[in-house]
């Protein structure tokens, strides 16, 4: 079954939310969770517009981490098909539907942090030297809704070391208090590039602190 069919089945089962997006049916529409007066919203019909809308925060900052809780409001997509809805969601939240489906089906290939950091090269290769403790601190200071990320973390530090218990490690990938049967959770199968960049800084600080 294609992802479009799976999304269609999810909508039929009553799912109407992913990340900061609300999905409406009959007719098919998509808007920001926090927008209520739908008549006041700017109408879009081309799924490609989603990338432009998701590019900057309301304050004009570049949102290169797409799971960030900073999606701008004020727009609504009127869509012709579930396939268009899939394209639109994939531009707001890249690969989110495929990752959700793989996770749900037990087919996801999670990349633990040490695997991810070990694959970095160039200036980011030093990120791999961050301590386990340093990495745990980064999870708590960068991930989860308190730090504006909407994704449920699936990875561990390595196969033997799970993430320490925290709001970030417990977060279920669903914004607000929606029932789990009504929302598609956003899942994080590998640390993002922002995390890698911060791990590099942390590793450098740890090295300098040891030297001091």
């Amino acid at each position, binding site marked *: 079954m294609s992802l479009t069919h799976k999304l269609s089945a999810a909508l039929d089962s009553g799912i109407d939310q992913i990340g900061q997006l609300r999905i409406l049916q009959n007719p098919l529409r998509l808007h920001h969770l926090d927008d209520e007066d739908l008549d006041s919203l700017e109408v879009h019909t081309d799924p490609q517009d989603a990338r432009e809308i998701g590019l900057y925060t309301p304050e004009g900052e570049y949102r*290169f981490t797409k799971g960030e809780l900073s999606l701008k409001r004020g727009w609504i997509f009127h869509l012709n098909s579930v396939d268009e809805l899939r394209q639109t969601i994939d531009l707001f939240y890249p*690969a989110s539907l495929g*990752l959700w489906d793989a996770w749900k089906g037990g087919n996801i290939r999670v990349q633990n942090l040490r695997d991810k950091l070990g694959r970095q*090269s160039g200036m980011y290769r030093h990120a791999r030297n961050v301590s386990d403790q340093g990495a745990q601190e980064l999870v708590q200071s960068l991930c989860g809704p308190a730090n504006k990320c909407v994704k449920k973390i699936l990875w561990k530090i390595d196969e033997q070391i799970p993430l320490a218990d925290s709001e970030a490690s417990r977060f279920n990938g669903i914004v607000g208090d929606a029932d789990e049967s009504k929302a598609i959770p956003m899942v994080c199968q590998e640390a993002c*590039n*922002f995390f890698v960049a911060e791990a590099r800084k942390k590793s450098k600080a740890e090295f300098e602190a040891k030297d001091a």
Partner: protein
Amino acid sequence: MNFTPKPNSALLIVGHGSTENPDSSTPYFDHAAEIRKRKLFAEVHCCFWKEEPSMREALYMIDAEEVYVVPDFISEGYFTQDVIPRELELSGPTTQVHGKTIHYCDPVGIHPSMTSLILQRTAEVAPGVPQEESTLFIVGHGTGLNKNSTKAIKDQVELIKTLPECHFADVVDTYMEEPPFIADWAKLSSTPNVVVVPFFIADGLHSYQDIPMMLGFEKEEGLAASQKDVFRNNPYSLQDKTLYYSAAIGTEPMMADVILDQISTFDELHVSHA
């Protein structure tokens, strides 16, 4: 090249992306949108090294069992030879990965059809300017670290010179960080007109600011790089010559055709669909 539609295959365009410059990934999405519009593939997606979706996430987006991966990169090098194969778990031109057949094409920048794109771009940026009285500079980054990064440009320059529709007095490969330096453009040209085409996929700091500074019509201070109107103020009168400056070659919408050409070339070399 004529492209045979692949209604059961997916196209995955791989780009570098940036955590700092939002313009950096725009061309990849434009190329994907253009190819999607032509309905040649079941699906068209992008993935990145520095943006989302990552290469490791990308396969989850794809339903099709056969996937053509095209690096939207300007040259062979570290990313196309090390990073992309490693991240997508590829071991050769065609690899079975997690139940999918992945065809790994060459990067767009080394395809011979880039030459016509470059000439088309020069006609757009310097309309009516006689080629016989003009020098064409193609500018790459250049780095002592990887010879392949300059090879793509040298090859394109040699190819352009052989084209019957090319009447430029000279076509010269130049670089930001190794000789021949683009900063020496006035010494390297003997014609009254000069056309400069940055051989990059996306417009960014290099094409907005660094190269214009090396050419002599932009200063470091002032507007943010992306707000500078460097491509729309042609021509520039500098050092007794008239200079026409183009946006990065990868921003050309026809790059979509080069991506398709690279897939056709891959099929000719590696895939028999008899």
